[in-house]
């Protein structure tokens, strides 16, 4: 019996070694396979995530909806007020001004950049070649104390404060399971690091239920709904309401 265990252990060691010689496509294929299968990801039409942000002892519920068409909205429902943190209807990016609580458009540059990302649902790596992105396997790196595969994703150039720049995101896939646990990107000289953990299954697909976004704000996902019914008008910027 001990012999068998030992053999198994040695076998594990033996297969663990060639895993180092990875390339980006192998990591990505394994990622999609381990998180529900490429076809299932491709068939996904929309997601609705209910999350919460803890601010000063208050739990603020946040909803995030993303669709395959590229429309998206993130909003908080709080004290009877719906505060849109960011919404994209395919043309405009808008949000709620927290002084007036009215919707306002964000700069055209944000809308232009959002349009470039419209084909990134549910994952920019899905069909990245057809989208004209490039992907490069950079090497292994220790992130969050664990070994990761570092993969560089280059998307269409974006504009930041009027100047065009490369859109590069580095993804770190934990070598043990090939799911991303961290991303790093920079725009206008500002670097942003997001982390992902607590992956859980939802109808066959795996999503991270705990994230830090915007460079460190913790976001806890309470539930994920796949292909929810969505009122299409939710993404549209409302006309100015009564300002009394």
């Amino acid at each position: 019996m001990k012999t068998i265990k030992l053999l198994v252990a040695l076998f594990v060691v033996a297969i663990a070694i060639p895993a180092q010689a990875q390339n980006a496509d192998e990591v990505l294929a394994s990622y999609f396979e381990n998180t529900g299968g490429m076809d299932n990801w491709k068939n996904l039409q929309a997601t609705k995530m209910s999350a919460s942000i803890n601010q000063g002892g208050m739990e603020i519920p946040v909803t995030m909806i993303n669709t395959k068409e590229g429309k998206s909205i993130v909003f908080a429902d709080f004290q009877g007020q719906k505060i849109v943190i960011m919404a994209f209807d395919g043309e405009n990016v808008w949000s709620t001004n927290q002084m007036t609580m009215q919707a306002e458009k964000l700069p055209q540059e944000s809308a232009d950049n959002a349009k470039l990302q419209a084909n990134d649902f549910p994952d920019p790596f899905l069909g990245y070649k057809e989208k004209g992105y490039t992907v490069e396997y950079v090497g292994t790196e220790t992130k969050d104390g664990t070994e990761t595969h570092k993969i560089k994703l280059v998307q269409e150039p974006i504009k930041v404060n009027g100047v065009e720049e490369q859109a590069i995101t580095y993804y770190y896939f934990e070598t043990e399971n090939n799911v991303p646990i961290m991303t790093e990107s920079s725009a206008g000289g500002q670097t942003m690091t997001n982390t992902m953990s607590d992956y859980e299954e939802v109808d066959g697909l795996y999503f991270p239920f705990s994230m830090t976004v915007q460079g460190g704000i913790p976001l806890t996902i309470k539930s994920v709904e796949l292909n929810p019914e969505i009122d299409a008008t939710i993404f549209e910027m409302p006309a100015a309401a009564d300002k009394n």
Partner: protein
Amino acid sequence: MKKTILAVLALCAVTSSSFAQDIVLKGKELFGDMKARHIGPALMSGRIIDIENHPTNARILYIGTAGGGIWKSNNGGATFTPIFDEHAQSIGVVALDPSDPDNTVWAGTGEIWTRNSVSVGDGLYKSTDAGTTWKKMGFDNSERIASIEINPKNPEEIYVGVMGALWNDSEERGVYKTTDGGITWNKILYVGPSTGAADVLMDPNDPTILYASMWEFRRTGWGFNSGGETSALYKSIDSGATWNKIQTGFPAGKLGRIGIAIAPSDTNILYAVLETEDPEKNGLWKSTNAGQSWEHLNNDFGLTVRPFYFSRITIDPKDPDVIVKGGLTGSISRDGGKTFQNMGNQHSDIHDVVFDIHNSDILYSATDGGLYRSWNGGVTLEMTEDLPLSQFYHISVDDAEPYNVYGGLQDNGSWYGPSSSPGGVEARDWNRVGGGDGFRVLKHKTKPIIYSEPQGAAAVWRYNTEIDKVTDIKPVPENDEELRFNWNTPLALSEFKEDRIYIGSQYVHKSEDMGKNWVKISPDLTTNDPAKQDKESGGLSKDKSGAETHTTIFTIAESPVDQNVIWVGTDDGNIQVTKNGGKSWDNVTANLVGIPKNTWVYHIEASVHGKGTAYAVFDGHTSGDMQPYAMKTTDYGKTWTNIITDDVKAFARNIQEDYKNENLLFLGTEFGLYITIDGGKNWSHFTNEMPPVAVHFIDMQKKTNDIVMGTHGRGVIILDDISNLREISDDILQKDVHFFSSKEAVMKESGGFGGTSTETQFVGRNPSSVAQITYYLKKRHTFGKMKMEIQDMEGNLVAKLTPGKSKGINIVNWNYQGKAPKVAGGKTISFPFAPRAKAGMYKVVMTKGKKTYEHTFEIKNDPKSTTTDTERAQQREALSNLSEGMENLAYLVYNIEEYKKVAQNVLKQNGAVKQAQDVANKLESLRAELVVTTGDMYVQEAEDELREKMTNLFNDMSTSYDAPSKAQLKNITTYKSQLKEGQDTFEKLQQKEIAKFLKYLTKNEMTPPTLLSKEDYLKS
């Protein structure tokens, strides 16, 4: 058969023990969330070597610094971000690929202005993402790279000028070329192992034309030489295949360092600055025929001063007659070099100047004291205030709360500043306590006295900060004897006698009266080797700054356990120790097995763990030996044990022991901080927000357990509270989860209005002032739920926290806040601040998958608080009372809104139904008294209603550290009675209008509102 089983068991044993060893974690895997904290300062900044601007985007600027890495600005130099924090911090050159300047950046490491304190580089790097990530492109042994020239028509063709090693011969120098983008390199110009490339230029109009200046130079611990037969200026017109000297007109004999420049607007015009055997012919030369012949223009001071330190020439891109030359002040000519004027006031020692690409009135200047920008062609200069590049030679700390950090800087005097300050550590927090270059700065234990010194102990200042009085207490030599003080002269204080101070020349001098009177307590403890006492250092240009004074004492340490035990280390390799306060000295140098002879004894740390115990760190880099050396003795130096392993990748200067755990040591090296938790058997490179910057000195603050580092290029960097590292053992590393005994959590009642800094000024981060829950995870948590709660000892939820998921040490902050009450909805947001938890014991409950881990810890009130326990109890009671009212209000408003919604639906669907209209109207007018129903969140806001009044009162009390006032308590009663009125009104409505409306609904088979219970509502 039996044998087989035994063999298998043996194998298993081997396997499992080797598994156990695998868990001896290193680096990032061990340190997890522990992060270094940078407090600058940036107000004096530090030396900058090279400025590179983008050829088409004037907003983008890169700077290469002497010891602080590469920084990038996206806003024309207003603010900068460090972009080279994982690599050698000493930079020689930064270059953008002219055909892809948005993305491709090259960096050559190793400073090229070769002063005594210069740091080292480790090769060439390339970035293809505008500096976010870098790849090594060779030249590991180049030490310093001066030039990178890229063919604008072919980015694969690149020339690199390698200056090479400063302290030894090396063949990795000269001019190199690649034609495959840096995969392979050919050495295309090499003249000898002591001569490197000082400047390589490509004609911007014709990439086949190259210029290269070769420089013979050498530094030792005791001297410097610039110049020789092999220094020369070369030109190639065939892409580097052949090279010819272009020196027509230059004087015969040896040449020194040559700086060259090509006028961008007319590439036949060249300028060169020369160092020759004929002082008349030094300075600026000009060629108008691309180097065929040269004319001498000028040998003014500004053009000949210290060529090894200043030889950069910059030509206005739009006007070949406007020339700037680096120097003590920087010189600018507007007549093609005939005459020069000094640049405007800025920090002295200008190493590089760059003109804005569009407007030559704008220029940037790299100095020993940071980056300056001019808007009027160099006449007036303003300093960039965002670059914490300060180069400390030494630091120390005091016992104040918060403690102060004292230290001296390269060309920037001596300073002290707090380790934390309201709003962060900013420029105004720092105080100047010495001029010149600054070195050791020490605070008297109890008196308002600070000792400081400039280079070579030209003075030793005793500064009384209370009366702002400075006294020079430098020991006066007896009988006109010459004292040899090192550039970086050791000063030391005593743990036993607070007025005692030591200083080292070739002797140890001791004073018992704060420097008023000194006695020599040793003979000459150095080798006193006359060969190392050269006073005519410099080579072609004499350079007598005192920087090369050698055969001196460099470190003095009085044992913290026995004042009669004093350790001394000298720059020429001696360790001497006395056990009787200096009556006799033992030279224990011969016992240092494995340390090359005469290796600089950079630091001795007298241990608190034993009278005869000490650590010594040796630095051989000034003789070309880049190995780290550190040894430990426990028997007064009779025997020594090597405590360095292959883990340490750079030469070392300093060591700091932990005063509690003898096996915990911190090593300051040329490439950053190393930590051992097993007495030097394994070392881990600490890299969490800690760049591989030269760490010149480390001190430990014993109250806070902070490791404080004086770095030579990134200012003061602090590793807050290392006490967790004391606890780490193999047993802990085997556990899935281990909570460290948390550091004392004190709810400090301080908190002013913060600082005065603007966005363009550097502000150092403060340490965490909240409770920190620290634990070790054996494995990174990626799949499944992981949650953390703070509970009171009865298991009631106090706060929900987001746990860290990293493998290694995780630190979770809790700001002591509990839950805030639920607040009613309205037209605006009314945000309550959750009150602080009560002092006492709490539990951390962490669930990870199916397992639960618990840890208890205590939070305490601020011992400096003026609030009594009774007052705190009153505050808690008042808050709880008001909080109950706020939640009752929230539930009432919820009920109102739910009925109103249904009523409005009926009105929408069935038209004017009286019952619905009555309900809607009455509910809305009640609601309008309870919460704000109009206006905005700014200057159009409505008058406060009950909700807003309650929240405001709640916040006034919850953010206060004091008991509620009588008026506040009265207001609680008032608001609660107003709430009661609202509840009564609602109850009446329920009996009458709402009852009628419900009947209507039943009759019409319509659904009444489904209301949550109050308990469920508060949870929702």
